[in-house]
């Protein structure tokens, strides 16, 4: 192999990559926020008394989890215009991602809620709280704490998955990498650098989620009372 790596043509276009990274980041952040809300709402709906509602949520979750994100994206961006619903690339992408993330989040949140001991709910009911109050005031926080690691990795996977948005023309990090590739023919270098950007972003996500966990969920341990000193 006598290939000389030349990163300079790629690095001299770092501003383009950074612009793409900014697009990737804001889309990811918005989708995570919205997808989390869909997940919470869906998880509550899946515990509803109304059978049709439970059935609907079940169907939604199964439909999304058993089809590829790329198929969902193409269905929304290329398929819906067949029905007269025409969307620009970024809104179509965001809808596809929120719908996708929402389904995975519902499963995680449901698991978290079910992990809270039933005695907690019983105690809340015994105190005269309504079911909704029990869910919001007693169950939700410990449930979120249990599900937090799974949520954090799901959100990171979502950020990485945004790379396929380049296929419908969203100008994200991966799209910019492809542009630079066609301008420089330094395919290996440009995709390696792009992967490096994604890796740093994933590590950044992990740091942010660890911080959020510490701020929201870490129990403040009260210092132990000083041991009684026995006078000699």
């Amino acid at each position, binding site marked *: *192999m*006598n*290939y000389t790596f030349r990163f300079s043509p790629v690095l001299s276009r770092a501003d383009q990559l950074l612009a793409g990274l900014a697009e990737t980041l804001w889309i990811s952040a918005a989708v995570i926020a919205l997808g989390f809300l869909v997940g919470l709402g869906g998880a509550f709906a899946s515990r509803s008394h109304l059978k049709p509602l439970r059935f609907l949520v079940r169907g939604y979750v*199964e*439909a999304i*989890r*058993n*089809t*590829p*994100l*790329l*198929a*969902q994206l*193409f*269905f929304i961006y*290329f*398929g*819906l*215009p*067949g*029905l007269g619903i025409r969307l620009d690339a970024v809104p179509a992408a965001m809808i596809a991602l929120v719908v996708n993330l929402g389904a995975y989040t519902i499963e995680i949140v449901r698991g978290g809620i079910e992990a809270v001991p039933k005695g907690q709910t019983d105690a809340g009911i015994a105190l005269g709280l309504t079911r909704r109050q029990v869910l919001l005031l007693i169950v939700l926080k410990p449930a979120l704490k249990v599900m937090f690691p799974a949520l954090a990795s799901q959100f*990171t996977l979502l950020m*990485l*998955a945004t*790379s*396929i948005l*380049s*296929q419908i023309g969203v100008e994200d990090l*991966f799209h910019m*990498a*492809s542009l630079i*590739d066609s301008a420089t*023919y*330094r*395919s*290996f*270098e440009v*995709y*390696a650098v*792009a*992967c490096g950007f*994604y*890796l740093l972003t*994933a*590590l950044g996500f992990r740091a942010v989620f660890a911080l959020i966990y510490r701020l929201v969920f870490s129990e403040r341990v009260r210092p132990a009372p000083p041991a009684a000193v026995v006078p000699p």
Partner: protein
Amino acid sequence: MFRNFGPGELLLLASGLRWTVALTALAFAGSGLLGLLVLVLRVSPARPLRLLAMLWIQAIQGTPLLGHLFLIFFGLPLMGFEVSRWVAATVALSVYGSAFLSEIWRGAVEGVPKGQWEASAALGLPRLLQLRKVILPQALTIAIPPTVGFLVQLIKNTSLASIIGLIELSREAQLVNGATFAPFVVYGCTSVLYFALCFPLTSWSRALEARRAVAR
């Protein structure tokens, strides 16, 4: 003129599904072999080997599959390695899968009580034999449900191979759409076909998990 979407087009999509299954099979075999290697390194008593495995897992899990695919398919030929679409897709999916499967399996191996290692060591079995004869058979029952779940992930991820032009279900859908211009029906049918492939596996994985939970 555009063709209408009819049974012939549905047949074309179904023939694409065949290649999705074939690619999944190759990628699953590759992920399994590579994943097993990463697992052995990851639980090795030698620290540098463990670190190497951790680095591999972190690097793969922290980068998008599309990046691996493009690095291999567009990057390697410039260095003089000709890679076909099938080789590129199989290798990229195997590399990607190895990082996830090895972690799933490590969870299963660590789910086996430590006393089992100690007992087999006390019987004088060398480390690899302990793993093969004592730990793996027990870990297997823990590992199978999430492994089937991962298989579903792999099926879905094969759709990315369409981006480098490998003709499987997603790529066939683009071609049929180009000929019929009935995107709603084409992409709708495509999703239904993926669902038909994935849903039984998802249900199976869930049933296995439930049975294991009862057995415990």
